[in-house]
């Protein structure tokens, strides 16, 4: 499988705190790659670096043969990032928010229309898209943001805790949407501390703790290696 993202020896310092201690991973074309680990493990920092929000202290990040440090604009043109606690502009209507975001990626009105139609289908909010975002529930905002992240069919979608704060029904819907887009060939880099979610969604995953990747592989490979019936047991075994 052709790799579209290659992360080598990635380190990140916040003052004296070393948040990432030289991690390596790759994401293949059309692959769902997940980072799993407890709070504070460094998942969000890694995702934020790939999303061009933070600059790496050391190491190399290459995406579609572009170096992150030299050409972050190329990253931004081809990625889409959904932060864990993201919001949308409360004074804008749902459709206006989607239009606003679509215009950064669409070169023509036809393309913009295509993005909007896709976003409306993903969000599934129907007529509520005509209401202001400030009137939406948390679940509705999350679906709107997921629609925003996927409507452009980015080469790489970076999803940080995509079902964070959602109820069971909404979580299931969001997972189905992610799975569908992955099947259509979009690469996805996601993070979660929900092991069941990762097992359902990911093709490959990395176990991360205290800024280090403990191990990585497919869910089946890791379960076999650590003799665990599920990823929670695998993670605990890897920590030892």
């Amino acid at each position, binding site marked *: 499988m052709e790799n579209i993202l290659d992360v080598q020896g990635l380190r990140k310092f*916040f*003052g004296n*705190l070393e*948040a990432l201690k030289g991690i390596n991973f790759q994401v293949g074309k059309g692959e769902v790659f997940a980072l799993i680990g407890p709070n*504070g*493990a*460094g*998942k*969000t*920092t890694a995702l*934020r670096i790939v*999303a*061009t*929000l*933070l*600059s790496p202290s050391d190491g190399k990040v290459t995406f579609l043969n572009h170096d992150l440090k030299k050409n972050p*604009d190329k990253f*931004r*043109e081809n*990625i*889409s*990032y*959904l*932060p864990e*606690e*993201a*919001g*949308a*502009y*409360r*004074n*804008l209507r749902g459709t206006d928010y989607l239009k*606003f*975001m679509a*215009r*950064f*990626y669409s070169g023509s009105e036809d393309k913009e229309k295509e993005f909007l139609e896709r976003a409306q289908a993903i969000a599934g909010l129907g007529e509520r898209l005509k209401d202001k975002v400030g009137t939406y529930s948390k679940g509705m905002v999350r679906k709107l*943001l997921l629609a*925003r992240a996927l409507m452009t069919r980015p080469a790489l979608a970076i999803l940080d805790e995509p079902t964070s704060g959602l109820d069971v029904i909404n979580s299931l819907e969001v997972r189905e949407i992610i799975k569908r887009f992955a099947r259509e060939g979009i690469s996805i880099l996601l993070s979660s501390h929900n092991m069941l979610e990762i097992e359902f969604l990911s093709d490959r995953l990395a176990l991360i703790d205290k800024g280090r990747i403990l191990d990585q592989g497919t869910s089946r490979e890791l379960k076999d290696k650590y003799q665990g019936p599920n990823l929670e047991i695998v993670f605990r075994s890897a920590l030892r």
Partner: protein
Amino acid sequence: MKKFTNLLVKEIRELITKQLVFSLVMFFVLFYFIGQLGKTEARRAAAAQKIAVLDLDESDVSQKLVQSLRPLYQVEAAKETSQEAAVNALRGSTTNFLLVIPAGFGESVARFEAKPVETFTFMRSFSLGAGRNSAVFRAVLTALNNYMSDEYLKQKIAGVAPENLKNPIKSKDFVIVKDRMAEGSAADITGFVFSQSVFIPVILMMIIIYSAQMVISAIAMEKQNKTLETLLTVPIRRTSIVTAKMLAAGLVGLLSAAIYMLGFRFYFSGFTGDMRAGTDVSQIIHKLGLALDAKALIVLGVSLFFAILCALAMATILGVLAEDFRSAQSLVMPMVFLVMIPYFISFFADFRTLSLPVKLFVLAIPFSHPFLAIQNIMLENYQPVIFGILYMLALFVVLVVIAARIFSTDKVLTMKLRWGRKKVVL
């Protein structure tokens, strides 16, 4: 450009909220209403006052005295026969003033020992308009004294105009501004210039503070609503994000300040407008070159424009430090102080007489320059105004570079004013 316009429109839409529109409309309506009320009161006060006169003397002298007041006031002769009766009769009327000339007044005048007249003012309210009542009898007594002293002098020294005896030395006053000279009183000119330009520092202060507050709040709201991270990952240059925020805040700040100032203008003109009307001081002002012509207004506008740019750039940097809308409000305070210093100096002090360290401190504040520019432009000292503009331009470039650097690095997400506590999201 299309992406930038998209961002700019969004920023403006975010800033123009229902709450902002409502507060601006309410402010304008309220101040317009107060101004109209003040105007009505001022007109009433400026009109010839009604004065009731009870002449208990009915001598030739007292009648002439009453006649001398007729050109200045609406004089009504009281028909009562005693002071008590006259006061009681006026209690229910709209006449606020009663002048009582005592019996024997004419005879006492003949002995140069005039009996005191009695004045009664009916206080029917304690409003600003009613406060002017106190001045009415002072003016009446001055008019009466003038008349009486003229009469005395005519009796004692016939053939000489009393005015020449009372004020033998006359003066012609001239005011010089640079190479121009005009006949007029320095106090009148100072008063006129102040009344005409009193709005300019207020406009400056409001525009600067408003724009700064807008941009700090805009960045803080992006953080509070968790939209900044998404915005920073879209394919648009970080400098465009900074510029769009500054431009939108500048435009909305300018619009808000204009509405506020229009409201203020109605408010103040209610109290001062009619008093200025009809004076010929404005002709002297033009003769002295103190009126702000098109060139002067353009230079002042350029100075103000660069002050706003500096304010926006400073506010952008401060906005990054804010965590939410509430903390953004406290971050506006340093900007307010920086604007208040030159604002008060322009009102209460003469910049030229300040000590050197204070002068340097004032000049280092970019917002001082448009305040100082007003007087310099009036006096045609354009050199310090140009230096001020160049200083603000240089400072703006430095501040924008700093702001762009902050937005291009991790600092836009990690810089926080947390008073000693550190927070890092892993």
